[in-house]
C-alpha cells in the first residue's frame, strides 16, 4: 500500500539510478539539490569522523596533559589544546560520536513515539483524541529548559538523561503533524475495508495507517536530528548535559569558552564551528528530504 507521493519518489529514484555511472548520479543529485548534497556531505563526514576517530587522531580525548595546557594551534596540535592540555581537534572528532548518538537516539525515539501516538489519536478519535490533544498542548507550551532542568535534577546528569530531556518535547511536535495526516487517511475506504475484514485496531494502525504517514514522519525525523544536536550542546553548555571528561561540543564550550575567550580564543571558536556545521548539515539534508517527500512543496 503506497501513497502517490511515495510512488513519485520511487520513480524519481529509479530515474536517478537508471544504470548510470555512480558519479553521474551523484552529479545529478548535486545539481538538483545543491544545498542538500552539501548537507549530506557534512553528515557523511561526521559519520566518517566518529567511525574512524581512533585512527584519525593520535591523542587521547580524555586524558589530561598539563605540559601542553592552552597551546595555541601549531603543527603538533592543529587546533590548539584546552585548559587541561587535551588536543581540541581530537575532542571535536570524538565529540561527533556523542553528537550523533544523542542526535539519532533522541530524534528516533521522539519521532517514533510521536508517530504511534499521533496515528492512534487520529484512529480512535472522540474523547481519546481530545484528551490526548490537551496533553500534547501542555507539553508544547511547557518551557523545554525547565523540563530538562527537572529531568536532570531528578535523575542526575549524564547522556541518557539528556536524551530523555530532549526526546520529550519532540513527541508532541511529531504527533501533531502525523495526526493531521492520519486524520485524512482514516477516511479512505481501505481502512473501512480492513475493519470489515475484522482486523484488530493494533493491526490497522501498525500495518495500514503507519506506513502511509511515513513521509511526514521522515521529514520530522531528519529535522529532529539537527535540533537534538543543538539542544544537547545547549544543555551541556549550561552544565546540565553530558559531563566531563566525555568529549562533547557543548561541554567544550562550557569549560573555558568565556574565561579564555581573550587569552585563548581557539578554545571557544572550534567547538562552536563544529556544532554549527553539524546542525547546518543535518538541516540542509532534512530540507532536501522534505522537498523530495512533500509533493506540495516540491517545485514543479
Amino acid at each position, binding site marked *: 500500500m503506497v501513497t502517490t507521493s511515495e510512488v513519485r519518489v520511487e520513480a524519481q529514484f529509479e530515474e536517478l539510478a537508471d544504470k548510470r555511472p555512480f558519479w553521474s548520479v551523484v552529479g545529478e543529485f548535486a545539481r538538483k539539490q545543491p544545498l542538500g548534497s552539501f548537507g549530506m556531505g557534512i553528515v557523511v563526514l561526521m559519520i566518517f569522523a566518529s567511525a574512524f576517530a581512533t585512527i584519525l587522531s593520535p591523542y587521547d580525548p580524555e586524558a589530561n596533559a598539563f605540559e601542553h595546557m592552552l597551546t595555541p594551534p601549531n603543527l603538533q596540535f592543529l587546533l590548539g589544546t584546552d585548559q587541561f592540555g587535551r588536543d581540541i581537534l581530537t575532542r571535536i572528532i570524538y565529540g561527533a560520536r556523542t553528537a550523533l548518538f544523542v542526535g539519532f537516539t533522541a530524534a528516533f525515539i521522539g519521532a517514533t513515539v510521536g508517530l504511534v501516538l499521533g496515528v492512534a489519536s487520529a484512529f480512535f478519535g472522540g474523547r481519546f483524541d481530545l484528551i490526548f490533544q490537551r496533553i500534547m*498542548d501542555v507539553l508544547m507550551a511547557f518551557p523545554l529548559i525547565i523540563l530538562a532542568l527537572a529531568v536532570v535534577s531528578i535523575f542526575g546528569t549524564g547522556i541518557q538523561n539528556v536524551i530523555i530531556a530532549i526526546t520529550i518535547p519532540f513527541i508532541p511536535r511529531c504527533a501533531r503533524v502525523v495526526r493531521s495526516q492520519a486524520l485524512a487517511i482514516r477516511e479512505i475506504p481501505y481502512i473501512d475495508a480492513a475493519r470489515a475484514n475484522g482486523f484488530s485496531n493494533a493491526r490497522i494502525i501498525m500495518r495500514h495507517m503507519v506506513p502511509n504517514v511515513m513521509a511526514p514522519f521522515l521529514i520530522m525525523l531528519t529535522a529532529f536530528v539537527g535540533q537534538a544536536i543543538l539542544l544537547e550542546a545547549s544543555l551541556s553548555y549550561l552544565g546540565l548535559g553530558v559531563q566531563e571528561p566525555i568529549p562533547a561540543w557543548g561541554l567544550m564550550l562550557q569549560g573555558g569558552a*568565556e574565561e579564555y575567550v581573550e587569552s585563548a580564543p581557539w578554545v*571557544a*571558536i572550534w567547538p562552536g564551528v563544529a556544532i554549527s556545521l553539524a546542525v547546518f548539515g543535518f538541516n540542509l539534508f532534512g530540507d532536501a528530504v522534505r522537498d523530495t517527500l512533500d509533493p506540495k512543496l516540491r517545485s514543479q
Partner: protein
Amino acid sequence: MWQYILKRLLLMIPTLFGAAILIFFLLRLIPGDVCELKMAGAGLYVDQEQIDICRTNLGLEQPMIIQFWDFVSGFVTFDLGTSMWTGKAITYEIALRFELSLQVAIMATLTAVLIAIPLGTISAVRQNTWIDYFVRAFSIAGIAIPSFWLGIMIILGLLIFTQAWFGTPWMPPIEYTPIWVDPWANLSQLIWPAVATGWRYSAVATRMTRSALLEVLREDYIRTARAKGLMEKLIINRHALKNSMLPVVTVLGIEFAFLMGGLVVTEQVFNLNGLGKLFVESVLNQDFTLTQALVMLVVTIAVFTNFVVDICYAWLDPRIRYA
C-alpha cells in the same frame, strides 16, 4: 465566530491546568528541598529541628493536595505569594527582570523582522537562483549556529575590533541601565544579545516568508494582476506580500512568546539578569513557589499567544471558517 472564541478560551483551561499539575509534581520529584539547600548554603551546623521549622513556615509539611490547592487558587486569584528562597514577593522578583527580558525580546523581534521580510521576499521572487540558495543557506545557518556561541563570538569580535581600532579593548557593560535613564548605556548592553537571538529568530521567519510568498505567487489573482500589466513591484508589495504575512505573523508571535522565558542560554553568555536566569536559579534553589509562578507565566503567555494568533487568522482571512 463568538462561539469559536469561547470554545478556544475554554480549551485554554485544561492546558493551563495540565501544566500546573506537571510542574507541581515535577518539582516535588526532585530530591532535597529549599530548606536543606538554604541551610547547606549558610554553611552552619544545622539540626533537624531547624529544618523542620523552616519547612513548616514554608508550608512544605502540609499534604500535597493542600499545597496544590494553594498553588492553583493563588494562580487563579493572581496572588502569586512569596519566593521560598528570598522571601520576597514573587511579583517583585519577576518585575525586577521583566523589563530587561521584554526589551531584549522586542529588540530581537525588530531585528528578525528587518532581516526576514526583505530576505524572504527576494528569496521567493528569485526562487532557485543563487540569491535564493544564499538566503536559504544564511537562514539555515541562523538556525544551526547556537546563539550562546554566537554571543561568545560577538564578544570576542568586539574585543579584537576595539583593540585594533581604539587601542583599548571594550566589552558591553554588565550592569543593566533602564533605557529612559541612559539610552546609550542601555543599548550598548542589550543590542548584542538582541542580535545574537535575532538572527536565529529571523531564520525561522525568513523561511516562513519565503514559503508563504511562493504559495501566494501561484494564486490566480497574481496571474490576473500580471495579465493586466501591473508593475512587478506593485504585484509583490501590494498583492502578494500582504496576503502572505499571516503565517509570518504567526511565527513571530510564537517565537516572541518563547523569547520571554527561553533566553536562558543567551542570558548566561551576556550575563544578563533576566527571566531566563531567574528560571534556572529558581529550579536549582528548589524554590517551588517561584518556579511554579514562572512556568505558569510562560505557559500562559504561550497559550494566550496561540489563541490570539488563531483568532487573528480567522479575522484576517475570511476563507477560514471555524465550526
